[in-house]
């Protein structure tokens, strides 16, 4: 399955606000060029978390097939190539150079959150079904995970035209964040990625992989 990764960051979550002023965090996580992007941004915190989300999305994508791949943030180098500020939300695009090769990148920046998608090509990103949704409450981490799974399964159910009750998410033991989707007891060959932070949850999946015949009907 082609790699897919997504990551959402709540810009107002405790620990996230004002992070661009944390020099040790910046030095440990970002390359010199990335730090220059943060310093030069009109909203340094937003740029910092956009770059972080890009690295996280890329790591999720490559670690799916290689759970032992290194997670050192500075080994996931972000290169921004285009910036589109014409719409309601700013959009960045480019690539992430990872220990397992380059991935295409797209990041949406809003006043409340940033959301990054990483996949093998710009076309692959374009065909992803993905969404960021606000959570209703401010419950525990477990609740946030459940909400992320719920919105993912709802979208897959709409895509397949099936009942949401036919679907469930299981976790593979290897790798951080390696969810798999079950359809009527069969493992669905679809690459998915889940994320949550603070008030928001997000998902992405690649709908290009056909439903296995044994699961249909």
């Amino acid at each position: 399955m082609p790699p897919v990764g997504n990551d959402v960051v709540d810009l107002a979550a405790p620990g996230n606000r004002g992070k661009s002023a944390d020099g040790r965090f910046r030095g440990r996580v970002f390359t010199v060029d990335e730090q220059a992007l943060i310093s030069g941004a009109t909203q340094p915190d937003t740029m910092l978390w956009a770059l972080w989300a890009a690295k996280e999305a890329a790591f999720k994508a490559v670690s799916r097939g290689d759970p032992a791949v290194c997670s050192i943030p500075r080994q996931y180098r972000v290169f921004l190539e285009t910036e589109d500020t014409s719409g309601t939300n700013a959009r960045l695009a480019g690539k992430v150079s990872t220990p397992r090769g380059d991935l295409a990148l797209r990041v949406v920046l809003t006043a409340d959150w940033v959301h990054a998608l990483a996949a093998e090509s710009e076309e692959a990103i374009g065909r992803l079904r993905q969404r960021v949704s606000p959570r209703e409450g401010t419950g525990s981490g477990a609740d946030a995970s459940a909400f992320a799974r719920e919105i993912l399964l709802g979208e897959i159910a709409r895509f397949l035209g099936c009942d949401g009750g036919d679907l469930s998410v299981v976790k593979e033991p290897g790798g951080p964040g390696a969810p798999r989707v079950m359809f009527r007891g069969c493992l669905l060959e679809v690459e998915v990625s889940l994320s949550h932070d603070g008030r928001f949850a997000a998902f992405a999946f690649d709908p290009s992989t056909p439903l296995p015949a044994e699961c249909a009907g």
Partner: protein
Amino acid sequence: MSEEQITNKFIDILRGYVKDPALLEKATQKTHILKDLKVNSARLVDIIIKCEDVFGTTIDDEEADRIATIGDAVTLIQQKAA
């Protein structure tokens, strides 16, 4: 510093980053910091920086990359103190 002292200090550090204190009550050396304690990756970076301050040491990228469980962190800090 004994393994028990390092463990207790490390768990004290974690208290500042784990949202559900009940998760820490049953923590063991095998407890996975991200998966079991629901700490996010950005906070793990903060935890490593805090460890450098509390234990008076430096933790490089490769060493940090090997920290998955509480036991991994305790062993690393113990080795660096030896």
